[in-house]
């Protein structure tokens, strides 16, 4: 049976790849895409989501626009990584459709009810929409099968020494999600920093001369520039890794741990505090990925991206 999912995202170069993967996979059925301000502003990420589904030949996928920023902290974007448009050098056609009438949080609740507890939320941006939906619809936790999340880190951060971008962008929302009781699979920097694609592998995509693969190459090349300027050798595919782990759970090893999100703190705001040594006395609330099979991940990524005409 296909896993029914909503992708809550802020495309974003790696979000775009994750969306292409999901739409190509026979293992998941994308029932909708919700957008949230993150990598770039809400208008851009929503336009990008619409362009992406249309480019993939799936105009039928509903896109619901979400929040334009976090509730409690100032919005911080990732334009330095993803370019002003959010999709680097991609040359995507302008969107030909409109977002649905429902706001993202309403859309999530409606779908969750329709799917009667079988809906999986794949969150690859800041968690504002999900936190909002949780407080708007108290019954939501019982209607969600699980959350597959790209976010956080048990170790080192990226946007600050302590924090990963998606969590840092809206720490209060992330805290609410981790406290919600919904089963969470967390794919943080501990694995995604090692989910790197090499220049040779990007060349395989390029040589295929297929339309979706070529768009991915365009985007990845602008992403590569940023990563190399930061001292990284490879290109870490954060969001695609979470999507890949949903499609094939054997690419990651996970362990149940207690995770709290620091919402205060001078140096640590947005840090996911992962109790790896079990010293907090708190019960585990997330299944945190700590190891990966990179080669298997890249094979799956290639297979899916090259499956488009």
């Amino acid at each position, binding site marked *: 049976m296909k896993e029914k999912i909503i992708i809550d995202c802020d495309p974003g170069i790696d979000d775009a790849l994750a969306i292409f993967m999901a739409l190509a996979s026979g293992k998941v059925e994308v029932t909708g895409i919700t957008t949230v301000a993150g990598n770039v502003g809400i208008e851009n990420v929503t336009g990008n989501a619409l362009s992406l589904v249309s480019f993939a030949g799936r105009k039928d996928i509903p896109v619901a626009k979400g929040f334009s920023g976090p509730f409690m902290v100032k919005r911080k974007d990732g334009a330095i990584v993803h370019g002003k448009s959010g999709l680097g050098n991609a040359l995507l056609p302008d969107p030909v459709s409109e977002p649905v009438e429902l706001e993202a949080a309403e859309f999530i609740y409606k779908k969750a009810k329709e799917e009667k507890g079988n809906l999986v939320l794949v969150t690859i941006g800041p968690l504002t929409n999900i936190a909002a939906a949780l407080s708007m619809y108290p019954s939501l936790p019982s209607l969600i099968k699980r959350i597959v999340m790209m976010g956080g880190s048990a170790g080192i951060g990226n946007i600050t020494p302590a924090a990963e971008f998606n969590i840092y962008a809206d720490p209060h929302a992330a805290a609410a999600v981790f406290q919600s009781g919904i089963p969470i699979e967390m794919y943080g920097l501990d694995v995604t920093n090692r989910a790197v694609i090499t220049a040779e592998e990007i060349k395989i995509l390029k040589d295929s001369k297929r339309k979706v693969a070529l768009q991915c190459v365009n985007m990845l090349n602008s992403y590569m520039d940023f990563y190399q300027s930061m001292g990284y050798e490879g290109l870490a595919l954060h969001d695609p890794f979470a999507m890949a782990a949903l499609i094939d759970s054997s690419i990651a090893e996970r362990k149940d741990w207690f995770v709290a999100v620091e919402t205060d703190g001078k140096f640590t705001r947005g840090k996911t505090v992962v109790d790896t*040594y079990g*010293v*907090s006395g708190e019960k585990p609330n997330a299944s945190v990925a700590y*190891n990966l099979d990179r080669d298997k991940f890249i094979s799956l990524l290639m297979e899916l991206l090259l499956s488009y005409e």
Partner: protein
Amino acid sequence: MTLPVIMDCDPGHDDAIALILAHSHPSIEIKGVGTTAGNQTIEKTTLNARKILEFAGSSVKVSRGASKPLFRELITAASVHGKTGLDGPELPDPVLEESEFSAFEMMVDVLENSRETVSIIPTGALTNVAMLLLARPDLKKKIKQISLMGGSAIGGNWSAAAEFNILVDPEAAEIVFNSGIPVIMSGLDVTYQAIIKDSDIERFRNIGTETSVMVAQLLDFFKKFHEEKFPHFGGSPLHDPCAVAVLASPELFVYREASVHVECRGRYTTGSTVVSFAGPPRNMADGSIVSESSIKSDSVYSILSQQVFESVSRKDTETEPDVKVLVGIDREGFVDLLAGALERLK
């Protein structure tokens, strides 16, 4: 040439062994010993320091330090170190009296009267050292370096995010890490690799001297806590002696340059050391780049700690990277160093 040092400690089983290593090692000269509250109350840690030094044959007087952290209430670690702070061996009451000088006065005296710069080795909360730096900034230039046990780049041992020594007095730690004095940080990242196994304890016991048998008894007690709480270690991490060992045998250690801030007002993260790495792993002795981690195991914890070795250096730090964060240790060499220290003593 010996390295003059001030010890600042809260014995504590691993503090005790750090004191013995510093006392025994030919390249280190203890100029003063101060105590701090942490593993136990100041009364107990001061008495323990006196007992240990006298037992090991040192004639250094112990100077009592602050009885509580700068701004917070004291937390202690009786679950690790027992009621006395040094449960295990029966140690005779010391004959030598406690110093008439406080830890602060002792440090001022040693620094003022030393012609060369002095290294400070704190193996407890950083209260005394922070007080010294605040009250006598003029003496900073007399401090060669601060080699401390505390903190971690990943994870904590007392809360999910914080290591005990830093958690006891986070404000003091933030003052020390950002004082401009070079700091060597022996945090959990390295001390969790400094594991003493049962066979090492037997090796120490079989040296057969009074001190070596006493140290084996300390370790017998110390391992009970770790067997119960951290069974995956396969032994006890010997935290505090790392801060001494890195000065005695730097070639055993791998470090990365970093800047470090201490979170003092987090909800879940107070007392955590926020480490921003600014350079590749290097050997402590000659600065040569070390390309491969000595961590071989594929356990969850090794995989996580691999990050402290290979994570990308940040270029955007606002703070000077004047901390050397230890990320690797030659465990066998470390055990040999401890055994050698015990062989030199009665």
